[in-house]
């Protein structure tokens, strides 16, 4: 049973790492109070699955490098401090509270005012400066999980976040965000099988302002409303209008675990975003719809008591469509897909030790389309992935080590770029140069949890390097964290 749990956690960690949560996609926030539960379903939280009573955690993320998309920051440093508490109330009711403060710096960020990381959205607000952004934010999580019957639990997970981000250089855009995400859930489980469903409803609002322009400043900022791949709208030296973006959406996800031999997990999410150039006479700038869909199937027959096998297939897709504010025609499309099939062989040596090797092959593609001007880019590619995972639990000390290597080969791109203009040559061509690179990705991560006096200390770290094969540029991501667990 213990070896099974080790392996399930391993599978879970892979799935979670590859599918960005909604908060991660739009807000760059990892709220981890349900990360260890199947399908991140809060209804699986019970007195039996509670990981600890409470914990103080400090996380540090940093990333940077030259191999990046033009609108990505040159470097990013991100820290958060959080406190999380799990409390069992009467009648097996579980209550979880999490509070976090986060601080982020993005250096050399080009043009964009929008605060979110997702660069697949069709419309941006921008000015012509490159500068550093600083963000301060706090977020709260409250989760209540209660049993309906012996095998059925329900729960609700409420996430709320406020941020303020500002750029240090003229025209000093200031971005305020106000976000809420509610996830009601249901879980049915017995000793051998599980079925869980989670619904989600979210609203993420951004309010962007720029410093008022005046002649005395002797500068002439250019404000842009970027739509699609070319032809941004330019306004010269206009004063700060309020720029608003509201993303609303819903999602549903589910997971099935049949006798721990067949695991299925799926997620669908649909969101709608509208943006306005505000001020005295708000002018709609367009809207977009985004649909994300993913699923993963794991077949896990046992071969020997010490050797299992996991055959898996997973698919992710993201489809974005942007619409003209007046004509209401579709003017932008983005479609990315990822299909992956592979094999994991976990081997248990006994006494809490597990080795697992993974090999997988995937096909992925990206299609970007500007139906306003008639531009299209298509980038197919294949990835060969090798991974190794090691877990040891001994003398109340837990060790985890993970290594990964990805070889990404980009296929023949298809590009229709008739009649492109300055924005295309300045931005879009750099995006193409990014996407067409064959590259390798190396990753390593480790975690150790050990007892210290009356509590436990968890230290973890990870490093990822993205290395284009025919360029000197690189991109690195580093994460470290320390947690005091009570």
């Amino acid at each position, binding site marked *: 049973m213990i070896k099974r749990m080790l392996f399930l956690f391993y599978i879970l960690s892979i799935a979670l790492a590859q599918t960005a949560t909604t908060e991660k996609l739009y807000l760059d926030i990892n709220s981890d109070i349900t990360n260890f539960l199947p399908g991140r379903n809060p209804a699986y939280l019970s007195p039996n699955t509670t990981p600890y009573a409470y914990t103080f955690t400090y996380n540090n993320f940093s990333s940077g490098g030259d191999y990046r998309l033009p609108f990505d920051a040159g470097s990013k440093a991100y820290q958060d401090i959080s406190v999380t508490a799990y409390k069992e109330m009467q009648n097996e009711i579980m209550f979880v509270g999490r509070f976090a403060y986060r601080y982020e710096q993005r250096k050399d960020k080009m043009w964009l005012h929008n605060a979110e990381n997702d660069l697949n959205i069709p419309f941006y607000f921008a000015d012509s400066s490159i500068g550093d952004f600083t963000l301060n934010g706090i977020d709260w999580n409250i989760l209540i999980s209660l049993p309906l019957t012996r095998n059925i639990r329900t729960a609700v997970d409420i996430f709320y976040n406020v941020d303020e981000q500002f750029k240090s250089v003229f025209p000093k855009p200031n971005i305020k965000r106000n976000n809420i995400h509610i996830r009601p859930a249901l879980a049915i489980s017995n000793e051998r099988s599980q079925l869980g469903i989670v619904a989600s409803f979210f609203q993420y609002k951004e309010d962007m302002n720029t410093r008022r322009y005046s002649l005395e400043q002797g500068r002439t900022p250019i404000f842009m409303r970027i739509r699609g791949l070319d032809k941004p709208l330019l306004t010269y030296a206009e004063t700060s209008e309020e720029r608003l973006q509201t993303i609303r959406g819903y999602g549903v996800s589910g997971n099935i675990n049949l006798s721990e031999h067949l695991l299925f997990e799926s997620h669908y999410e649909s969101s709608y975003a509208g943006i306005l150039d505000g001020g005295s006479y708000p002018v709609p700038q367009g809207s977009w719809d985004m649909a994300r869909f993913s699923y993963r199937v794991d*077949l896990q027959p046992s071969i020997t008591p010490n050797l299992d096998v996991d055959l898996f*297939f997973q698919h992710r897709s993201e489809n974005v469509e942007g619409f003209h504010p007046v004509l209401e025609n579709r003017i932008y499309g983005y479609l990315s897909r990822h299909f992956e099939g592979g094999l994991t062989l976990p081997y248990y040596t006994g006494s809490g030790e597990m080795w697992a090797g993974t090999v997988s092959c995937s096909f992925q593609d990206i299609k970007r389309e500007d139906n306003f001007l008639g531009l299209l880019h*298509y980038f197919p590619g294949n990835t060969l992935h090798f991974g190794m995972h090691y877990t040891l639990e001994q003398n109340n000390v837990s060790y985890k080590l993970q290594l990964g290597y990805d070889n990404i080969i980009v296929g023949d791109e298809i590009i229709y770029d008739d009649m492109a203009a300055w924005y295309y040559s300045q931005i879009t061509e750099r995006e193409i140069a990014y996407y067409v690179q064959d590259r390798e990705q190396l990753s390593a991560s480790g975690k150790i949890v050990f007892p210290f006096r009356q509590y436990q200390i968890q230290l973890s770290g990870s490093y990822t390097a993205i290395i284009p094969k025919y360029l000197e540029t690189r991109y690195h991501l580093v994460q470290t964290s320390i947690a005091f667990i009570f």
Partner: protein
Amino acid sequence: MRTHKNMKKIIKHHLAPLCFLILFIILSCTQNITPPASMRFSVEITVLDTSASDSDSLVSAALVVMQSISYGEIHEALTNSQGIASFTNLIPDRYNILASGERVSLSEIIIINGQLQDTSLYIEENDTLDLRIITQTSRSSALVISEIYYSGAPPNPVPQYFHDQFLEIYNNSSATLYLDSLIIADVDYGHYEDSVIYAIHAYMFPGDGDDYPINPGELIVIAQDAIDHSPAPIHSINLLDADFEYYLSDKGDVDNVNVTNMLQIHHKYGIDFLYSVFKDALVLMHVKDPYKLGYGEFNELLLPKSAVIDGIDYSDNLAEIDHKRLSPDIDGGLTGGIPSYSNKSLERYIDRIEDGRIILMDNNNSSLDFHVLHPPTPGYIEMEAEE
């Protein structure tokens, strides 16, 4: 042995779904990439002059300019013998469309101007739009506004200094003319299609009919304040040699006693006859009785539009052609596009030289007739256009 059995079991129970999955992956991966749809379109614009006889109503060789308001793209084409100008690969947007041409007979050249303002153009299918521009006709003026400087002095160190404004008038004809009793007025916004000019300010040249002659090829300068604005801290232009100036004795205005003062006909507000540093329209008129039509609701002096000799319509934002103040028979275009307090002026292009005399361009379309000049040149014409 047990391992062998387990392998058999795996193959039996899991190979079929695995094969199905692999087949599904292969089928899912295929994607047919075709050229993208585009909202670009073509348009054919027919230019019509309804004042001409039927056979001449289609205007050939007219210049048609399409300006995309949001994106700033400018497309130009000449009409063919059928009066049609063709444009391709336009992007959907609001457009300002200007048409300018001329009809030549033995006795005269008639100027043709027409426009479609702020017109949303797009099509659902990949087809061609057909548009028509009905033009208005006008004739070239003998007296023309040759240069206007309204933007004001550079803001550093004295902000918002505009007392160095001037207007320059040129005799574009071969005959000596007289400025006596001609009126300079600025035009209020919102009366584009009316038959009268709504003047916020109106100032008249003094004289009894033959006191202030202007010879062929001669120009005169009307200053707001005819003083030297070039010393520090203003660093602008010298208007000591201006021919006329506006003077408001009751407003503490500066008076150069060596320069003839214009006569105040109407002055709605302000400490001087200030041309807006952002957007305005000025006309030169000849009106026998300027008070005959009375006043507008908001104390504008009403003057007959038919009495306009020449006019200029300018704005700092050239995309705002739908905010024009002058109708196409006076000015079929819009000029300017220069920031306020930039020390830049607008000067009329030179059309040709006849017998050593400069003939300035006069299409009654300031978009075509004027260019930006820096620094301003009060009292003379810059021979080489400088943008």
